[in-house]
């Protein structure tokens, strides 16, 4: 009798535990409550024949799940560019995950401290329309100053084998476009911490970025795509209001790299930016998705938020690569630089 009872209890707990684990499958919206820098991100969890796998913002994130307990590791870079890890440990209860974040291998001098012990939560991802829909594109006009936080700055993404091979040969010390004052491209323009201005008028939105004096035109008049438009670092963009968001689609970019890690972006890439305004119209946020099947098996996601500050001045960005080349010369690496020309983006 006791054996039967033990067997029933074991079976009961086993079924219960398995049911708990299965509830992790799906898409979750991460909310990390760091006081000075709250973070948001998309967490995707899948069960495969090899076990649980997870992605944060489109990049692989090692995950361990035991019953209703989860542990996720998310690599990221700090503002200085140094790599570190965020460990998210949590418990799933009543359809919601709550837990604590621990920062690992953080460089104190890089000012990334202050995260340790922060609480985090995740709820099932539901795409909801903005509480304050953009009614007219002109509402976006103004000067926007970047705020801290929101973006995980996820370091690694799910590269294709070809992209991994290319990336293995990438040397940011010599190949990073901005080092020699070459436009880093739209992906960087949107995600870097510089102010920018939006001017919406006459069937287009003009976006003027402080970083590298970059600019772009986003056509909003519903025009047909031109027969020919050359590829460029900022690409060809069209935009429209969809469910209260200003959505920009961009194609015809040139080859460049994604963030400081230098993962590649191909000419065949397209990018989708979804802009929202806060209820009071004073904050602008974007979710940027990079769709580039040549290089990524899952689309990388970045997030930014800005505050309206129309009296802010956007400064000219005078870039001169002389000091970069001088350093290469002094270090005896000019020939190496020249030899790398064919593979440099």
């Amino acid at each position: 009798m006791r054996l039967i009872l033990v067997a029933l209890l074991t079976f009961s707990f086993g079924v219960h535990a398995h049911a708990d684990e299965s509830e992790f499958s799906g898409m979750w919206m991460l909310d990390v409550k760091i006081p000075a820098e709250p973070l948001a991100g998309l967490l995707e969890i899948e069960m495969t024949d090899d076990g649980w796998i997870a992605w944060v913002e489109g990049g692989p994130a090692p995950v361990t799940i035991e019953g209703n307990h989860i542990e996720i590791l998310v690599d990221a870079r700090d503002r200085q560019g140094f790599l570190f890890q965020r460990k998210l440990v949590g418990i799933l209860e009543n359809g919601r995950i709550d837990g604590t974040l621990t920062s690992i291998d953080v460089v104190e001098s890089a000012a990334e401290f202050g995260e340790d012990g922060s609480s985090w939560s995740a709820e099932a991802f539901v795409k909801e329309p903005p509480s304050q829909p953009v009614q007219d594109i002109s509402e976006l006009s103004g000067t926007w100053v970047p705020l801290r936080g929101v973006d995980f700055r996820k370091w690694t993404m799910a590269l294709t084998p070809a992209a991994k091979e290319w990336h293995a040969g990438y040397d940011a010390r010599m190949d990073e476009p901005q080092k020699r004052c070459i436009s880093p491209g739209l992906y960087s323009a949107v995600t870097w911490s510089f102010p920018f201005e939006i001017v919406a008028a006459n069937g287009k939105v003009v976006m003027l970025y402080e970083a590298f004096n970059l600019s772009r035109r986003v056509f909003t008049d519903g025009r047909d795509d031109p027969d020919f438009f050359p590829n460029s670092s900022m690409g060809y963009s069209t935009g429209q209001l969809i469910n209260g968001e200003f959505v920009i689609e961009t194609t015809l970019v040139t080859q460049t790299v994604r963030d400081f890690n230098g993962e590649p972006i191909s000419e065949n890439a397209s990018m989708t930016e979804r802009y929202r305004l806060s209820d009071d119209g004073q904050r602008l946020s974007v979710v940027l998705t990079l769709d580039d099947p040549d290089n990524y098996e899952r689309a990388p996601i970045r997030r930014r938020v800005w505050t309206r500050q129309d009296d802010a001045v956007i400064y000219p960005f005078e870039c001169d690569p002389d000091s970069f080349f001088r350093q290469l010369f002094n270090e005896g690496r000019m020939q190496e630089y020249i030899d790398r020309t064919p593979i440099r983006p």
Partner: protein
Amino acid sequence: MIARTCILFILPLLLAGNANAHHSYAAEFDRDAPMTIEGVVTEVWFKSPHVRYYLTVTDEDGNKVTWDTRGLTPVKLVRQGWMKDTIKVGDRIKIFGHVGRTNKTIMSILDVTLADGSVLTSRSVAYDIKN
């Protein structure tokens, strides 16, 4: 209780150190040993992508060595009041920062201490534009 850990996805974590080599900053500078140098400014380069100050530093053996130091882009520094003429040729300054991994005479600036003792910071901090 069944624990399922995806070994395949642990691998990128184990290789994380190698990923550093691909980023210019992490590849160029030693994150673990920030240090201070003191010297006289011989050249000011107040342009993007990064300001640079060339510095003559006297080493432990009495040799004069030229250091190539760099900070944030000027548009970020000027918003803190760090202008082109804040540091001039001939100034004696101290710089605290990350030293190059292979080139031991380059430095990424975190802070600069001027002759009058005031400290300038070249760290990416919370944005607070007040023009």
